[in-house]
Each structure stands twice: as structure tokens, then as C-alpha cells.
């Protein structure tokens, strides 16, 4: 059991535990906290994959800004505990069974595809070079989508402002 493999299993277990906790939690704030745990675990996995800039952006933007927005909205709307939903007696068990079968199918397909993926290209640059190469790619080949995302953020800001206006302005 090498160190990277051990780290992978730890972070993967943390991510799956967070996702399961998101489903099982009754109060939305616990679901939000579980989702933050999932995101931090995924950031750890990105670091393991050598994508350090993406890992840091994931924590700063996703876990540190978007989820803060979720938590603040839950706090403001004073979301209480959820009502219990009962699994449908007719469709529940067969549905779960089918979902399990689909999951098993996907997992075996992914596990068997190992040799196809490994035949791919050389190692991606990782470490200090990867951020530099990533920024080169972002500002040369992908500069048009990059400028479009800035426009998208502007539209989102305007939309949020319009939605937040009071009726009797």
C-alpha cells in the first residue's frame, strides 16, 4: 500500500461519506456542511492528480464562496428540518435495485477500461510547470471562452441585482 494509494482511499472514503451524509441529513445546514467536506476531499484528490491550481481554485471559489452563499441563504431563509419522505412501497425497492444495478454496470465498465486509458499520451506537466502551462493554455487557445465567462459573470451579477430589488422601488 503505497502512500498515494493510501491517500486516495482516505480522500475517496471522505468524499463518499460526505455525499451519503448529504442524502441522509435532515437539516439543510448539515447537507451543506457535508457538501463542503466533499469539496475539500475532491480538492485533495486534485492535488494528488497534480492539478494544484485547480485544487486551490476549487477551495477558494467553490468551497469558500459558492458554499458560503448556500450557507448564508439557508441561514437567512431559516430553513427548518425536512419532513420525512416515505419511500414508495411499490416503486421503492425495485427502483433501488435498478439503481444499484446501473451503478454496478458503470463501475465494471470503468474498471475494465483501464488498458484503454493507459495507452494515452505522456505525463501531463505537474508541479510548478503546470500552473504556468495552464495559464498559457487559458490565455492563448481558450481566450475566447475566458472572455465569455467574464461576460457571463456580469450577466449573473445583473440578474442577482434585479432579483434582489424590492417591489416598490
Amino acid at each position: 500500500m503505497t502512500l498515494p494509494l493510501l491517500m486516495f482511499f482516505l480522500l475517496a472514503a471522505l468524499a463518499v461519506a460526505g455525499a451519503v451524509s448529504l442524502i441522509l441529513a435532515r437539516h439543510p445546514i448539515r447537507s451543506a456542511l457535508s457538501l463542503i467536506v466533499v469539496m475539500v476531499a475532491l480538492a485533495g484528490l486534485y492535488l494528488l492528480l497534480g492539478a494544484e491550481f485547480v485544487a486551490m481554485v476549487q477551495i477558494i471559489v467553490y468551497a469558500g464562496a459558492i458554499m458560503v452563499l448556500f450557507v448564508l441563504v439557508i441561514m437567512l431563509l431559516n430553513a427548518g428540518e425536512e419532513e420525512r419522505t416515505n419511500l414508495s412501497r411499490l416503486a421503492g425497492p425495485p427502483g433501488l435495485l435498478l439503481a444499484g444495478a446501473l451503478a454496478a454496470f458503470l463501475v465494471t465498465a470503468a474498471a475494465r477500461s483501464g488498458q484503454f486509458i493507459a495507452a494515452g499520451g505522456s505525463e501531463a506537466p505537474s508541479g510548478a510547470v503546470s500552473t504556468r502551462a495552464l495559464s498559457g493554455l487559458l490565455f492563448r487557445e481558450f481566450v475566447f471562452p475566458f472572455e465569455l465567462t467574464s461576460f457571463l459573470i456580469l450577466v449573473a451579477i445583473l440578474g442577482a441585482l434585479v432579483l434582489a430589488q424590492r417591489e416598490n422601488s
Partner: protein
Amino acid sequence: MSFFSQHPFLVAALIKSALLLFIVLTTLAYLTWFERKVIAHIQSRWGPYRVGPHGLLQPLADGLKFLFKEDPTPAGVDRLVYFLAPFLALTLGLTSIAVIPFGPEPLRISGYETHLGIADLNVGLLALFAITALGVYGIALAGWSSNSKYSLLGGLRSSAQMISYELSLTMSVVGVILMAGSFSLREIIEAQAGRSAWGLLPAWNLLAGPFPQILGFLCYFVSAVAETNRAPFDLPEAESELVAGFHTEYASFKFAMFFMSEYANMITVSCLATILFLGGWLSPFPATPLWSWTHYLPSVLLAGFGLLVLWDGLRYTTLLGKIVLPGLGTVFCVLAGVFAAVPGVNHFIQGPFWFLLKVFIILFVYVWLRATLPRLRYDQLMAIGWKLLLPASIVNVIVTSFAILKWGAR
């Protein structure tokens, strides 16, 4: 055991973490003492001076008080989140010290070489901002979980303030990143070596380069003071003196954890300001042989301080003052002698000495601001963050980019 012998860096990291944790927690405690003494002297009074000589045992007394006070949990709180919030705040505040490098020279012990500072990440600066971004949760969750309307509003205000100033905080350091060409804190410091202004000034980011980052430093410092909820931006926290705040329902030890996390954030932000703008561990004097006498400055200052402590202790009548203080003073003098005598040790302590001196100066300015300036109202606070600091830091980025395009990064 063989696992550890295969990965010696893990053992070294564990030992360094434990040591650094101990040092940081002690520094936190004595930072509170320092703050109280400085504010008192600015306000023409004495501050703590009864508990131990010069009030030096006051942090110990405060810590014992926090440990032994009653810790009631209010009714109707969400227990998990209520206990999680201060723990999260303190953990995040202490974690950010892990990426800060303290000195250039590695420490060599029995053939194993390790750098000062626990981790040197390629994206160290971004990691610090990531930890700061997560720090908002401690306050937001504390305000919400206390099951009290005033706590909730205080927590919301405080987290809104922290999020707003995070933007200008991160934008104001982009100029430094552009000039250094890297996110790694060690490389940012190393890019500031050398002299500028025809050899008169050190080539720190504040003073040199194509565009001296003065605007960046001011934006960074003001945003940092607001980000750590310190005066004059501490309205969400000072409301606890008037009505309520996010830590109003928290009693002894949990309140102490919030308190400690605030000071830990202060230390982190000061260390970052030193690294980014003031040259980190670099000496302000040139490295020519003419100025090699400055290498003895740490020992001379330490010896002077030791003599002062010794002389001061002799005029105490209490047992503690008469024995401990002169003892401490002698220890300092002996250490200073050792530093001056052994050239290897002297070379090693140059970096950490200048780093700690600069951090100390910035912490002094922090405390000075608290004692001197009046508090800002909340709408003034948010207006400054969004309408003044964010545009100023964006202007800094634009001007720095043009300066680098024209004159090159160094």
C-alpha cells in the same frame, strides 16, 4: 516503523508541526499581553502589571480563567454545529501558519536537512487564501447555531464583511505575483533580493521593481485589518459590547477559541504582508563586505535586551521578579554570545531574525490602529470595501501589468 524510516519527511513534518504549534500558541497568548500593554501606554495608563513582573503572567491567568469558567450550552442549539464552529475557526487559523517559510537556510540535524517552515507549496500563496476563504464558516456557523436572533445578525454581518474584503485582499497581491512570477512564497521572497534605487534601497516589493507596490501594500493592509475583524473595522464584533455578536452565546473555552483564532489570523496576515511586500527574511542592508557588521545586529540586540531585563529584575522586591527576570536576562545574554561566537549559528539566525522583526513591526501597527482610530459604521465599512479598495486594487493590477510589459519584471 519502516514506513516512517522510508518517509523521513513525515517524521520531520510531525516534529516541526508540534514545535511550531507550541510556539504559535505561546506567541498568541503573549500577543494579547503585548496588545494590552501597548494600548494602555498609548492611553497613558499602565495595563496589567500586578500578575507577575510587568504583568507577564496575565495570559496565564486569563487562560486558567477560561479553562475553569462555567460552560453553559444554550437550549435549542444545533449541537454539532455549535461545537464545530469555534473548533473550525481555531483550526483554520492555526493551519495557515504551516505554509509560511521562516528562513532561507535549512537546518541540518545528524545528516538530515529540513527547511524552516512545514510545507513549501508551489501554490503557497493560493493555499493561504484558500484557508482564509474557509475561515468565514467559523463565524457564519457560530452566528447561526447560537439560536439567537442577535447572534445570527452579528454572524451574517461579520461574514458579509469578511467575504467583501477577501476580494480586495486577493486582488491587491496580484501585482506581487506578477513581479515574482510564481505563487510559491519562497520564490516571491527570493525575487526581492538585491538593491534598487542605485543601491540605496533594498529591492523589496514595496520599494522597487517597475512599479513599487505601495498602493498594493495599502490595499492589502486595510483589507487584512478588515478581514480579521479588527479595529477600526470591528463593528460586528464590538457590537458584542453593546448588544450582541456572533460569539455572544459562547462561554469560557469556546470563546477563548474564537479569541485565539482572531489573533492567529492577525499573525498569519502579518507574516504574509512581510513576505509579499517587505522582503520576508531579507536584510535591509546590502550584502557587501562593507556591511558585514550588520550580521552581528541580532546578537547585539538580544544582548542589549537581556541586559535590560536583568537590570530591571534586580529592582523587584518579589521573589519572582528578583530571581526569574535576572535569570531570563542572563539566558538572553548567553544566547547572544553564542550567536555571535559560532559563525554557523550566526548565519542561520539572520533570516528568521529579520522576518520576526518585520512581523513584530506590523503587529505593532495593528495594535496601534486599534488604540488610535475610531470604529467605522457598517455601511461605511462596506462602502470602503467595495467602492474604494476593490477599484484601487484593480487599478494596481492594471498599472503593474503595463509597467512590467514596458520595463520587465525586475
